[in-house]
């Protein structure tokens, strides 16, 4: 019984990993990068590398933008105020299905020119949970399936690991490559287990109402009603009154919101149905000092300024959920913790990659020529080193494309995304056509791309690492450059090791250091 259970869990671990490993690696890789999404934005949008502006911007400064939104019959208009990680102020409104968004220099109040990139917050972060597949929300469901598989993999992995305590600290770099792979997989898996489980679980919980709509509609008319209710946004569900009415003074309302919060600042200002009698003016509190996400929304009538609602104190259940989503979304400001997340995320990537490679190395001798094996072999390189390479190509293209690039009807931001997908696709093809040298070639390419990204950032913006390190407000750029340089260094080491191995004895199984390249 015991044996049978272990065997079936082993089977489950292997195949869930092989089938969904590619998706999992993509999700964890993009998720790890999303830890620093704002910092990636600074790197990719040089115009937004601004010194922090003095506090106390008048919200009324943005009245023209609000009027513009009213004229465009926008469904909503909002301001996201600058903070420690985000020096620019963001204005956004939605008309029909299109979002109009501007970045504003808070010091001068001028709208910055369009940055022509989706950057970290609009490409890398959404990729993390949608894979950028919008068709019928298919991407979200695939990510959800992969996340469930991740939980299953964690459970089955613990069950099949016979010597979890005896080998808790075991890593033997002098052994054969297959053994090293398994050691690495076990070390990253076991030591990072709380991280894998909690991040995966909280990610699922955040999108829970999307994944289990039937359970929600058992007590709500639709999932949207639940979303409004749970997030204290019920003030938005209002009977539309189309008669025109101007929006009251934003500053005055903000002062009242501040007073209600005991002096805390708003992070987001939202006007729903601007310009209508039924408009709503809501303030969302900053939440930088807590893991638990409590925005404490204060809503006024946009037309009269009367207080409509304020979030009630959170119940224990909602608190638990907000803590989980807070620990996943990392909206708080804690630099050391942020780096810990980043390193642990890279650990998860190494675990997934080494799991893949171990599967390959154990089957190379017996099934090396089978179609299925070749298929997974190409898939592995494409989904491990390939997505790293594609991301780097995304960064490089960001620095290389001219400001008003336009090609085949695609704007600059779309072209960057096309570069990403083209390079990614090419790495798969490369893996299938030249399986012998794929790891060597792709880790060399990673080193070249990462190094060049730093160089191109210097050439195109003048912000070389010495300059970025000496100015506090350029540290995000410095951090990204440093990570790229460390990644280039690791990739170079891996390349040299792989090359030595290939030169030394050509039949030896390929080393897998490429997986640990970050």
């Amino acid at each position, binding site marked *: 019984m015991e044996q049978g259970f272990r065997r079936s869990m082993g089977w489950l671990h292997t195949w869930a990993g092989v089938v969904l490993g590619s998706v999992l690696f993509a999700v964890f890789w993009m998720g790890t990068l999303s830890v620093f999404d704002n910092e990636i934005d600074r790197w990719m949008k040089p115009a937004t590398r601004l010194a922090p502006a003095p506090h106390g911007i008048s919200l009324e400064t943005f009245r023209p933008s609000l009027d513009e939104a009213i004229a465009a019959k926008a469904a909503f208009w909002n301001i996201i105020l600058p903070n420690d990680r985000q020096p620019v102020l963001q204005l956004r409104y939605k008309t029909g299905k299109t979002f109009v968004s501007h970045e504003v220099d808070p010091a001068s109040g001028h709208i910055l020119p369009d940055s022509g990139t989706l950057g970290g917050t609009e490409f890398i972060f959404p990729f993390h949970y949608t894979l950028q597949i919008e068709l019928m929300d298919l991407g979200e469901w695939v990510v959800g399936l992969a996340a469930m598989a991740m939980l299953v993999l964690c459970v089955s992995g613990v069950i099949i690991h016979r010597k979890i305590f*005896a080998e808790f*600290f*075991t890593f033997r770099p002098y052994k054969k490559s297959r053994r090293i792979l398994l050691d690495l997989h076990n*070390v990253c898996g076991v*030591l990072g287990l709380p991280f894998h489980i909690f991040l995966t679980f909280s990610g699922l919980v955040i999108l829970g109402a999307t994944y289990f709509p039937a359970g929600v509609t058992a007590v709500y008319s639709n999932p949207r009603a639940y979303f409004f209710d749970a997030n204290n946004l019920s003030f938005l569900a209002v009977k539309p009154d189309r008669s025109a009415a101007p929006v009251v003074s934003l500053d005055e309302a903000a002062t009242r919101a501040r007073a209600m919060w005991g002096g805390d600042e708003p992070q987001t200002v939202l006007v729903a149905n601007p310009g209508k009698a039924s408009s709503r003016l809501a303030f969302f509190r900053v939440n930088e000092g*807590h*893991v638990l996400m409590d925005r404490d929304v204060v809503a006024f009538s946009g037309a009269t300024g009367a207080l409509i609602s304020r979030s009630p104190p959170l119940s224990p259940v909602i608190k638990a959920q907000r*803590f989980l989503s807070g620990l996943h979304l990392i909206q708080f400001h804690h630099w050391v*913790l942020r780096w*810990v997340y980043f390193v642990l995320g890279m650990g998860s990537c190494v675990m997934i990659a080494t799991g893949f490679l171990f599967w390959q190395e154990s089957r190379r001798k017996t099934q090396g020529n089978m179609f299925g094996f070749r298929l997974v072999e190409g898939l592995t390189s494409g989904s491990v080193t390939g997505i790293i390479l594609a991301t780097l190509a995304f960064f490089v293209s960001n620095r290389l494309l001219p400001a008003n690039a336009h090609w085949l009807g695609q704007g600059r931001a779309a072209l960057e995304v096309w570069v990403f997908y083209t390079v990614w696709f090419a790495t798969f093809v490369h893996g299938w056509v030249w399986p012998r040298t794929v790891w060597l070639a792709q880790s060399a390419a990673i080193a070249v791309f990462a190094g060049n990204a730093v160089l191109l950032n210097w050439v195109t913006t003048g912000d070389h690492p010495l300059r970025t390190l000496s100015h506090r407000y350029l540290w995000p750029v410095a951090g990204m450059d440093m990570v790229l340089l460390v990644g280039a260094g690791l990739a170079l080491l891996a390349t040299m090791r792989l090359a030595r191995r290939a030169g030394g004895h050509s039949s030896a199984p390929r080393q897998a250091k490429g997986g640990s390249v970050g």
Partner: protein
Amino acid sequence: MAFLLYCAFALVLFLAFALLALTQFTHRRSTGTAELPPERVRQARFVAGLLLCAVLCAAIYTEGGGFGVLLWAGLVSLAACAVTVVLGWRPALLAPLARLMLFSTGVFSPTHQPPGAGG
């Protein structure tokens, strides 16, 4: 400065995991030290557990409940990884600690019962 405090947390956690690892036969062999008597193993594990708890309490005290727990959990993983890496590549670095664990056996052994040996 907060950063130094986090370094201190990480160091104490590293020490705790090093103690735990050095109660295991394979790692004692790789550091070239003799095996510990069972009583000593229990004591070392107890001290390690105490250190882990102490850092958790300190982290919650200085960082607050949410950040404290997350920071502790993260640093626990990283410190354990660091111990693993050191044991993998340079086990000799932990040899002094391994010897120390052996050396103090006499001082802490129950037969001597010196004052303040409760640790």
